[in-house]
């Protein structure tokens, strides 16, 4: 019992003092910030993809909207980039409603395909738009004017900003998980028909989850822009951005509070390492490895790594005995 309290506390303290421990190495500080940023995006995806079980493969749309809203706030209005974040969230919520209302009624595959198509559509549109800088993209403030521009040389300030935002998202997810909506979403994921028959308005709750998820993903995009100071259609709306969110959540455990963070802790250092050792040619191999990881998770570990540490609930006993039941034992 005591170990169950000490371990999380120790991990929290470690997260808080990590930048101080890595004061010597800019590379490790930067990696810490990148892990948190990736975890923000993946945790946002987790709300709709993990908890509600609606697998969006086009979350880059919201990420790109956040990033572009921020850069537009700077380029066209002269505001600090982060001032574009609320705009990005608003547009994301609206777009999520627009995509979600028709497609969430359909079975899971349709929703996934629709999210891919919308993602590609927005990417092509962005690269033809002069307002958004076309295929070249747009840059944020070259020199920080005030601290509000959130433009720092060191990765440490970003680390703490990202940590606060991640804590906020995880806190909200935890609150949802324990509340009425969390129960509804899990019921929908297990069996939408059963959930509906018990009076859960499945469509509405899936849509809420999607809109909330989109809004937070947009925040990740805005934060990305503040740190990197530049966005183009590929780094904002590219399908790989969406893929990374899905893979991180699925590797750690989709529908688990800390699943996306665990996935980010593994995959971000992996990607940084392969990029730095293999250089430009490494990018391709990184995604071959990503693809292989995804296939292996889907095939052998669909509930993610965290499920390995899960203690089997007592209710699972009759489930385990199920194969003995002749009615369901000879499925194939």
């Amino acid at each position: 019992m005591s170990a169950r309290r000490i371990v999380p506390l120790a991990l929290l303290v470690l997260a808080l003092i990590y930048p101080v421990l890595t004061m010597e190495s800019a590379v490790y500080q930067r990696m810490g910030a990148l892990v948190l940023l990736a975890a923000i995006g993946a945790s946002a995806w987790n709300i709709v993809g993990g908890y509600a079980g609606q697998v969006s493969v086009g979350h880059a749309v919201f990420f790109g909207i956040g990033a572009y809203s921020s850069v537009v706030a700077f380029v066209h209005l002269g505001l600090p980039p982060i001032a574009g974040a609320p705009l990005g969230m608003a547009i994301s919520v609206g777009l999520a409603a627009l995509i979600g209302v028709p497609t969430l009624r359909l079975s899971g595959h349709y929703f996934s395909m629709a999210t891919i198509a919308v993602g590609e559509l927005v990417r092509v549109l962005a690269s033809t738009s002069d307002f958004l800088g076309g295929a070249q993209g747009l840059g944020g403030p070259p020199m920080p004017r005030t601290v509000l521009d959130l433009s720092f040389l060191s990765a440490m300030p970003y680390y703490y900003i990202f940590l606060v935002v991640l804590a906020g998202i995880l806190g909200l997810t935890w609150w949802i998980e324990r509340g009425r909506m969390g129960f509804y979403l899990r019921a929908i994921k297990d069996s939408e028909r059963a959930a509906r028959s018990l009076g859960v308005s499945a469509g509405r709750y899936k849509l809420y989850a999607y809109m909330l998820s989109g809004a937070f993903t947009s925040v990740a995009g805005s934060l990305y822009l503040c740190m990197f100071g530049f966005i183009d259609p590929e780094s904002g709306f590219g399908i790989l951005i969406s893929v990374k969110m899905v893979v991180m959540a699925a590797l750690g455990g989709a529908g688990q509070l800390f699943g996306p963070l665990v996935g980010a802790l593994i995959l971000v250092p992996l990607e940084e390492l392969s990029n730095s050792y293999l250089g430009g040619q490494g990018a391709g191999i990184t995604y071959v490895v990503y693809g292989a990881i995804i296939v292996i998770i889907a095939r052998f570990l669909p509930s993610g790594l965290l499920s390995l540490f899960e203690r089997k609930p007592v209710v699972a006993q009759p489930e385990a005995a199920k194969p003995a039941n002749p009615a369901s034992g000879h499925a194939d």
Partner: protein
Amino acid sequence: MSMTLVQVVIGGLLLGAVYALFSSGLTLIWGMMNVVNFAHGDFVMLGMYTAVVIWTSLGGGPWASVPAAAIVIATLGVISYFFLVRHIMKGPMLAQILGTFGLALFLRYGALWAFGANFKSLPDNLVGHSFVLGGIRFEGSRVLAAVVGLGVTFALHLILTRTQIGSRMLAVSENATAAQLMGIRPQRMQALAWAMAGAATGIAGALIALFLPISPTAGETLAIVAFVTVSLGGFGSVTGALVAGLLIGVVESLTAYLVGPIYKEVIVYTLFVLVLWFRPQGLMGKA
């Protein structure tokens, strides 16, 4: 002016016949197993590269590359079925989507690693030059692709609707357990479906390679074209895929001609979203 328009429409129909062919592979799997192969576009892409390899290493033209691509991609389909799809079919929705999606990434970036990012193309003279008929110019490679595409799609349709094998596959898709009780082996039929879909997809890839630039990411756009075609034509319907494929080919060509080449993708994606929105069962599908 109007002659040019006729030219554009005919070009669209020729392209659409190939779209119909590779979309019928997707619709077959989907209709039979309720599994969406998100790696479908990358199967087409590998069919294209098979044609490149045949041409560069053996100097063979379409008569060698088309059958080779059919065999290679059919094998890939059967392997994917036995090692991946068979297992994830029973899993949660997340595993189903992730499984073939991971396969897509693996194949796409594996091809990038193996063949490089540069665009490749087959030489024009593999098929022969263009000819003029009734004032309309035809390119040999596109005509060949369309004729073979239509022929294979029609053959697939006949196999599914007129033969005993087709009836068995239909039986498995309707109720695998009942089919098994009638002495049909569901897994064998499903593997066969993957082989047939793979062969059709491979043939389509080798044909497309005759006139479209070949790159590792070519599958990304083609996958969406296939999704649009299948959802427009109705799931599991090869005839639906044929009509929708021709329609999309024409729409794409007209958009490229009237609005601009960049917008041909925009219009296809928009069409897809509109179909999902207003008529998710497809134009010819049952509700």
